[in-house]
Structure formats: structure tokens, C-alpha cells
């Protein structure tokens, strides 16, 4: 596949790696070297450095690459060879300076986590060719490009799966291969789906912990919103989104519910937000006493839900019953006091009616999450009173029965001792 036209600057800059070589052993001294002069040696597939690495230039591949298409010649990049007359030339040459043409990406990259100025890490940092290749640099739209969404995970993975251990390790990164984003690219060829750079950025990539990172808490909503526009809008209108905009730290962002690399479709049984599993996700905050206290929310939402038929049935994998989002919605969850909320008492008949045909006002006369709580109307708590009465009754009756049996066994034991 070839793309004609000059390489655009907006392409990820890529420059040939300093092919640290150039041995033109046979060449006579010439005034100005032409492409042919270089190829006189470098077209030999057997040509190798002292350390056995190849010095062969595949002309066909180069001609097909962005730079080849643009008609760049060897010396345009390998500027260190300009004016060199002695061949074979020295093995170490001046490094190719991609920045001389690709100024903006190069300066972004130098300030990124990958750039030397921004990082004090000891690991070897990637240069342009590590991501873009050298002689066969291709635009990201080219299927064979190292930076094509199809190939990018592999490109990044060369370092990030093993060599570079970040906080959560290679396994965490490898989870991406199971994700809906990766499958969309790999299986369906949907290159609009998220690849590494879609979320993390490319040249200006920052550490995830940095506030400048595209996937930091501060930016993640926008990162996902690049593609999931309608969902970003819904989210920002709901309680979570509103609190997010207020800068509240505990409010969930996209990744808190959907996970990061392992993100799956909600319909996938392994998804964290699958109908039978979503309650556990919500419960991380809504069944957490300290969070509930801090933000004045009702606690024990999971416990009270699991005790209901809906919750219990879900635990056994029954998918037809209501889960958290069936009643509360998901991205645009609203407080019950909001007239637009699906769980506003005025809207409950409609919400419940989606499953319970003919649901009327009685559905709102009680507490779905029935817990004993001073804030709940007395009669709505009556099932708790009944429960307590039953517990007392069960205790009393069963202890009585056990006492009778114990007394009977005792009498028999005594009789056996006496008579037998």
C-alpha cells in the first residue's frame, strides 16, 4: 500500500535512526555523494557492522515510506555524512536529528515521560525510531506503520510489556488485548477505536500519575469523551459528573466503573458493569460507611439490595431482574430529589413499570433499599420490626424445643444408668 504526497508535518515525526554506519569501502573519493554512492555498499544484504547487525537498506521499503515518497535522500537525514570524502566512512555518525524538520513533535516528546528532560529514570528512553521505525517510516494511516492503531499496541508493548515496569506491571497493560477497544481494532478493523495513543497521547505522553496526563483524573472524562461524546454529556449532567466538576476527589470517573485497559462492553459477562456484577462496582462507594458519612449518602446500598429479591436473584446469575442501573440509570444517575431522576417518587411507577406491567403509585410507598434508618418513615420500617419479632420468636421457640429434647435425653441417660 502506498500513499502518495509529501509527508505532512502533522504525522508523527519519525526520522531515520542514525544508521550508525556507512561504509563505502569501494567508493572512490567523490565530490558529492549521490544515493547511488550510498547504495553501492548498503544494498548488500550481507553488509554488517562489527557486532553483526545488518547495515542493509531495503530500497523498495524505503521508496514506499513517507520519506521515500517525499523524495528525501540519504544525506537529508544523515547530515553527518555531508562532505565526507573518505570511504568507508566512520562507523559512528552524528545522530539523525528528526527535530530539524519535525520541530513540534520533537519538542513535545522531549518534555514527555519519554523525553530526557522530563525524566530522571534510568531506563533507556525511546527515541523517534523506536516508535516510528527508521527507513520504513510510514504515516499512521498506513496499515504497515508502526504507529497505525492496528500495530501500535505491539509497538508500545515492545517496551511496556516487559522491559518497562510501571506501577501495575505488564499484566495490567496486557489486559488491553482483552478489551473491547482492542478487539474492535483487531477483529473488526475499527481504527477509530481506542489504541494506546488515543487515551495516553503520543509525543506529549505523560506519566499517568501526572495531572498533565490525558488519562489523569482531571482529564480522563475528556479523554473518553473524544469518542464517547454523548456519554460525556450524560455523565456531566448526572450527580457524579456534577460533583466531578466541583473537583470532588472521591467521585467516580469513567475508569472507576469501567476499568482502564480491561474495559469491556457492558453486555460482556466479564465486564465489571455486566448486569450481575455492576452492584459490586457501585458498592465500592455506596456500601462504604466512611464515604457515605463524608458525603451524607445512605450507606449499605449493596446489603439492602442483596437482601431484596432483585439482588439475591442477580447473585445467582438471573439477568432478568433489576440491577443498580435498571432503576438508577448509569451515566446520568441523578439524586432521587431531582425531578428528572428515574427514582424520583413521581417517576417510580414508570421506572418500575418497565418490568412490572401496570405499576402504580404503590411502588413508591415504601423503601426499595429497606434498611432500618431513622430517616425512613416509620411505617416503611415496619418490615424491620416484623423481622425482629421473628428473630425473637425463632430464638425462643427453638431454645424451648432444644431444652425439651435435652431434658428428655437427660432423663433417658439417668434411667439407663440406674437400670442398665
Amino acid at each position, binding site marked *: 500500500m502506498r500513499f502518495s504526497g509529501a509527508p505532512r508535518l502533522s504525522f508523527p515525526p519519525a526520522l531515520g535512526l542514525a544508521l550508525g554506519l556507512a561504509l563505502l569501502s569501494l567508493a572512490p573519493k567523490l565530490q558529492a555523494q549521490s544515493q547511488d554512492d550510498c547504495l553501492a555498499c548498503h544494498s548488500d544484504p550481507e553488509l554488517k557492522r562489527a557486532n553483526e547487525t545488518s547495515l542493509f537498506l531495503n530500497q523498495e521499503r524505503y521508496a514506499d515510506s513517507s520519506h521515500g515518497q517525499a523524495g528525501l535522500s540519504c544525506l537529508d537525514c544523515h547530515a553527518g555524512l555531508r562532505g565526507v570524502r573518505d570511504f568507508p566512512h566512520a562507523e559512528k555518525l552524528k545522530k539523525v536529528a528528526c527535530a530539524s524538520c519535525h520541530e513540534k513533535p520533537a519538542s513535545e516528546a522531549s518534555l514527555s515521560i519519554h523525553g530526557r528532560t522530563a525524566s530522571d529514570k534510568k531506563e533507556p528512553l525511546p527515541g523517534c525510531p523506536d516508535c516510528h521505525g527508521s527507513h520504513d517510516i510510514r504515516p499512521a494511516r498506513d496499515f504497515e506503520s508502526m504507529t497505525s492503531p492496528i500495530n501500535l499496541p505491539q509497538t508500545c508493548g515492545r517496551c511496556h510489556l516487559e522491559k518497562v515496569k510501571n506501577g501495575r506491571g505488564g499484566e495490567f497493560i496486557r489486559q488491553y488485548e482483552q478489551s473491547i477497544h482492542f478487539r474492535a481494532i483487531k477483529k473488526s478493523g475499527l481504527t477509530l477505536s481506542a489504541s494506546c495513543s488515543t487515551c495516553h497521547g503520543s509525543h506529549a505522553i505523560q506519566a499517568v500519575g501526572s495531572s498533565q496526563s490525558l488519562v489523569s483524573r482531571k482529564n480522563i472524562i475528556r479523554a473518553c469523551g473524544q469518542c464517547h461524546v454523548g456519554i460525556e454529556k450524560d455523565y456531566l449532567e448526572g450527580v457524579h459528573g456534577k460533583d466531578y466538576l466541583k473537583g470532588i476527589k472521591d467521585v467516580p470517573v469513567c475508569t472507576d466503573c469501567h476499568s482502564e485497559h480491561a474495559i469491556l462492553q457492558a453486555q460482556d459477562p466479564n465486564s465489571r458493569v455486566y448486569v450481575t456484577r455492576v452492584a459490586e462496582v457501585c458498592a465500592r462507594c455506596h456500601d462504604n460507611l466512611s464515604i457515605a458519612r463524608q458525603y451524607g449518602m445512605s450507606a449499605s446500598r449493596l446489603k439492602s439490595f442483596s437482601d431484596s429479591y432483585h439482588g439475591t436473584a442477580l447473585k445467582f446469575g438471573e439477568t432478568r431482574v433489576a440491577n443498580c442501573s435498571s432503576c438508577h440509570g448509569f451515566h446520568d444517575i441523578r439524586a432521587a430529589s431531582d425531578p428528572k431522576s428515574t427514582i424520583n417518587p413521581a417517576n417510580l411507577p414508570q421506572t418500575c413499570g418497565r418490568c412490572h406491567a401496570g405499576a402504580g403509585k404503590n411502588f413508591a410507598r415504601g423503601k426499595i433499599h429497606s434498611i432500618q434508618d431513622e430517616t425512613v418513615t416509620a411505617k416503611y420500617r415496619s418490615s424491620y420490626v416484623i423481622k425482629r419479632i421473628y428473630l425473637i420468636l425463632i430464638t425462643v421457640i427453638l431454645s424451648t424445643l432444644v*431444652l*425439651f429434647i435435652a431434658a428428655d435425653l437427660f432423663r433417658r441417660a439417668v434411667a439407663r444408668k440406674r437400670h442398665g
Partner: protein
Amino acid sequence: MDKSLFITDDEIFERMNLAERIQHLVLIVTFLLLVLTGLPLFFYEFKLFRWLIPSEAAFQVRGIIHRLAAVGLLGVVVWHIGTTLFTRRGRRNFKELRPRFKDFRDALELFGHNLGLTRFLEGKGLFRKFFKKHPYWLFERPPLFGRYNFIEKFEYWAVAWGSLVMILTGFFMWQVELSLRLFPLWVHDIFVVIHGYEAILAFLSIIIWHMYSVHFNSEVFPMSKIWLNGRISGHELRTLHPLEYQAIHLERERAQARAKAGQVMNPYENAKN
């Protein structure tokens, strides 16, 4: 109880007739099915039940079995009410099953007798005056039971009450839309709570009380066979249900007296009894 001249120890009496035995059998099956398919909802964290109901399909089958068994239970309850109302035997049994003051006294006496605490105290010379004046509290002899002792009556009424409660609340849980058309949600919540806790009560009572009475009790161990053949011997009647034994004795005694007085018209009359 002294031996009757009219009842031999190996005479066989019918304690449960065929209809009653079938009712009991259906009750066992439906009760077990209901417990097995219902308890998992109560103890949803319990691993065994997760293993028992491993999939969504299994869970749905669970629901179907539970409802079928409920219909079976309802059927046996209706049948039992029918035989109780419309057969002579049923009415007589029912009369015997009515709770009386004697049952409470029997419970106290049996417990006091088995414990033997008061006899122990008396043996140690304590409260001698009191016990001399009120020997009742020594509980020297266990109480004498009729056709149904207080334990059996308690079980009968527990099943009756339990079935009523479970069928009513279960019906409204099954027909939740109907329930919420008639009652507010907080009332429906009460149904749900009652259904669960009544089930626990019934299940534990049966496991503890009934299993002891009819299986592990050394008098019947390993199992009383009455529920299978319906038969009870004269000896068992005399030791376990002495008042019924006495009643049969008196009845026969009177019948014989009548026969003697009025000349025996039918020489086979006694044999028939």
C-alpha cells in the same frame, strides 16, 4: 397404665389411614422441595447453594419447582381441610387435636419430670415442707397423653399456621404486580420478610423437633414406621398414648356390658372390634 383385658399388646390399630399417609407424604415432598428451592434465596452467600444453583437456567428452574411445590402444598392443605370437615374420622381427629389447658400442663410436667430437679432438691432435704404439702411439683410420674400429645399438637398447629402464612405471603410474592396493586410497597416488604423468616422457623422446628420425635428418640430409633404403614400396636398405644388406650378399653368394656345385659344377638360383634 395397666393392661386392659380387652386389648392385647400385639393388637394392631390404625393410627394414620391411607389418605392421611398420602397427605403426610405429599407434605414431606413439597416441604423438602420448598425448603431446598427457597432457602438459597435467604442464605444467598452460602457456597453450597451457589453450587446447587450454578447457573441462570438453574435459578429459573428453581423458581418453577418452588411454585409447583407450593401448588402441591396448597393442594394437600385443601384436601386435608376437606377430609377434616367432611369425614367422621377427620372431625374426630380434629377434636383430639384442639389445644387444651392440659397440653400446657403436660409440657410443664414432662419437662419437670425429665429434669428431675425438684426430686433432687427433695432428696437433699430441701423445701421438704413445701413438697410434702404440694407433691405435684415433684413430678414423680410423666404426664399421660391422649391420642395426640402436646408435641404432636404443637407440630400440627405449627404446620397449619405455617402453611397458611406461607401460602398467603407466597401468593402475593408470586403475583407481585397484583400485590402492589392492592398494598403499598411497605406492606409487600412485610410479606417478603414473613415468608423468609417463617420458612426458617418451620425448617428449624422440623429439623430439630420432628426429627427427634420420630427418628432419634430411642423409643422409635431409627424411625417410627407409622407414616408408612399407619399401624400402632396395643403395646405402643399403652405406653405412648395411655389415655387413648384407656378410652378404647372403656368403650369395649361398656360394649361388652351392653352385650351381656341385652343378650348377645350377634356373636361376632366383639370379634369385629
